[in-house]
């Protein structure tokens, strides 16, 4: 039962992803029936559907799936590491750091896709490292991590505000769109960035899952069981930051997927441990559905997907705080 349930949940979520993907590929200014989408995917479409589905819409859908999976898995590792359901790249300052790095590239350097992605990865990694080092006093206590995260984010937000005010209005609006996290006009380049991280780092995360589970029991216990604690922790952090970095580089700082996906996955599978793969699949489904909502909610206006995830995620956090009987987050 304990091993069957996660597999069944994972299977159902994968099926959901596939179904939503077919709907998303058929949705837009030029609607295509699900049958038409499937025919196009297996190579039996018309030149028109080939162009629309394969060249225009497929990169966007694949980017959504890969970014969602990367963020979901990253959040699962962060939450396991910090032993705190709120330990996500949002809270530890990674996201704001990545935003600052990307903005420096967009506004000061005027860079393209590769430079912006690089800026996001470097900025996010530096910020996460700074928060972790500042909060570390023997152990990175949950509350301290949250509050130091708030402090570092406030500092970086001030820098972002300053950059936005200084910039030319066109650059500033491009930067603001990036800041919200968007899947509009994604290319195969974005798919490669996010997809390669998932392909390479998700297996690594799986290999590390056993160690993460033991680390959750506390450093003392882990040492007694023969786990090299600091090395295992560093490997986990590097993997989690790598996944978050790739996701952010491809889609911008999409809020809350990394926070909510692992929590939803845990509820669905009821499994212990970091739950990496179910979280990744949940994240992929969450982002794909959010992107469909973002495209259709105020059509023809295309919202950036980050607007939808921020609203959904904020509402979810409010519900966690106010309406659940006991919030584990605050006692962690």
């Amino acid at each position, binding site marked *: 039962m304990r091993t069957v349930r996660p597999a069944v949940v994972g299977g159902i979520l994968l099926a959901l992803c596939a179904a939503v993907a077919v709907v998303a590929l058929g949705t837009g200014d030029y609607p295509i029936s699900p049958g038409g989408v499937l025919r196009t995917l297996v190579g039996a479409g018309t030149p028109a559907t080939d162009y629309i589905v394969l060249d225009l819409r497929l990169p966007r859908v694949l980017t959504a799936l890969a970014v969602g999976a990367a963020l979901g898995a990253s959040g699962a590792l962060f939450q396991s590491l910090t032993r705190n359901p*709120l330990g996500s790249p949002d*809270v530890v300052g990674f996201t704001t750091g990545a935003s600052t790095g990307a903005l420096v590239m967009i506004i000061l350097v005027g860079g393209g896709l590769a430079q912006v992605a690089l800026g996001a990865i470097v900025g996010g990694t530096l910020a996460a490292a700074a928060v972790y080092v*500042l*909060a570390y*006093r023997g152990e990175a*206590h949950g*509350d*301290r991590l*949250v*509050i*130091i995260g*708030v*402090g*570092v984010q*406030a*500092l970086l*937000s*001030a*820098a972002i*505000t*300053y950059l*936005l*005010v200084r910039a030319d*209005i066109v650059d*500033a*609006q491009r930067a*603001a*769109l990036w*800041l*919200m996290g968007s899947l509009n006009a994604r290319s195969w380049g974005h798919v490669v960035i996010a997809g390669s991280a998932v392909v390479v780092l998700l297996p690594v995360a799986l290999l590390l899952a056993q160690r993460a589970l033991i680390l959750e029991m506390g450093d003392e216990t882990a040492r007694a069981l023969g786990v090299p604690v600091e090395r295992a922790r560093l490997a986990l952090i590097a993997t989690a930051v790598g996944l978050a970095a790739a996701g952010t580089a491809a889609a911008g700082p999409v*809020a*809350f997927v990394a926070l909510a996906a692992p929590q939803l996955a845990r509820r669905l599978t009821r499994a212990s441990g970091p739950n990496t793969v179910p979280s990744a699949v949940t994240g992929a489904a969450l982002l794909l559905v959010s992107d469909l909502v973002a495209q259709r909610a*105020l059509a023809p*206006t295309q*919202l*950036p997907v*980050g*607007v*939808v*995830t*921020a*609203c959904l*995620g*904020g*509402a979810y*956090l*409010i519900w966690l*705080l*106010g*309406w659940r009987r*006991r*919030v584990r*987050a*605050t006692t962690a």
Partner: protein
Amino acid sequence: MTGTAARRLLLGMVGAVVALAAVTATSIAVGSKSIPLGTVVTAMTSYNGTLDDHVIVHDLRLPRTLLGLAVGAALGLAGTLIQALTRNPLADPGILGINEGAALGVVVSVAVTGLTSPLGYIWFAFAGAAVSAVMVYAVGARGREGASPVRLVLAGIAFTYVLHGITFAILLTDTAAFDRWRNWSAGSLAAADPDALMGVLPFLAVGALLALALSRSLNALALGDEAGQALGVHRGRTRLLGAVAVTLLCGAATAAAGPIGFVGLMVPYLARMITGPDYRWLLPYSLVLAPILVLGADILGRVLARPSEIGVGVITAFVGAPLLIAMVRRRGRLPQL
């Protein structure tokens, strides 16, 4: 309190007022354009509207300095008040979601009504700030533990995300609103408009008087809820009046000058190091120390980036955030109140 301690605090207060006067004078005398001190003095004493330098001093620097004084005093008082009411050292309008509520108000007013003068959007900002403050507190105070520091911060983060999402959805479709928003959100005294200042001044004054009048009740409340009640303090009424004062002070200040973070967090902390826990001293000290910080930050912003300038909110964040981090690191946790 012994007589010598009271005399020491009174003396300190005189010193703080002198420092405030000095910063105020500096704020009028110093700016992007160097104007000789003699000209500044004559601009104040015998104003001549045909001289450029006189116009700069009289019509730009003076309103700006007055706005800094008013906003600083409001944020300092509000910070002390929030900390007293929630016993939460992290209480700051930035962290509690008030800024994001006011930002949404600004964006909605520019996008929907096309108002672009501060006088037009100030009321929307005020309403947005008030609504979001009430919601964050309501959610943060739910549950068994009540409004614990971390719960309030998390509620603030949650509402900030939702409001931010809505704000951006509007901003991305409206370039005029975007331009207004990015300048407003840097927290600047530069656009000081005497009419806007006069508009919010009544709210600030009522809020300040209410805050100062509560100092005795807050002292009793600090002893714990039961002891406070035994001393005849009505707990619910004190909390409600305090919350009204906070909303008036923060909402009006943020509406007038944009989000200026960390003043409400730093000043009560510094004031408490001088005065100890007595709110009859703590509130007046915050009232005087906070404008020193705001005007000081504003002067720094004008001087650092000559001939352009850096918003005062950016400077206070760059000073305040490291202080917050140092505070949490040194004690290993948040200071308890």
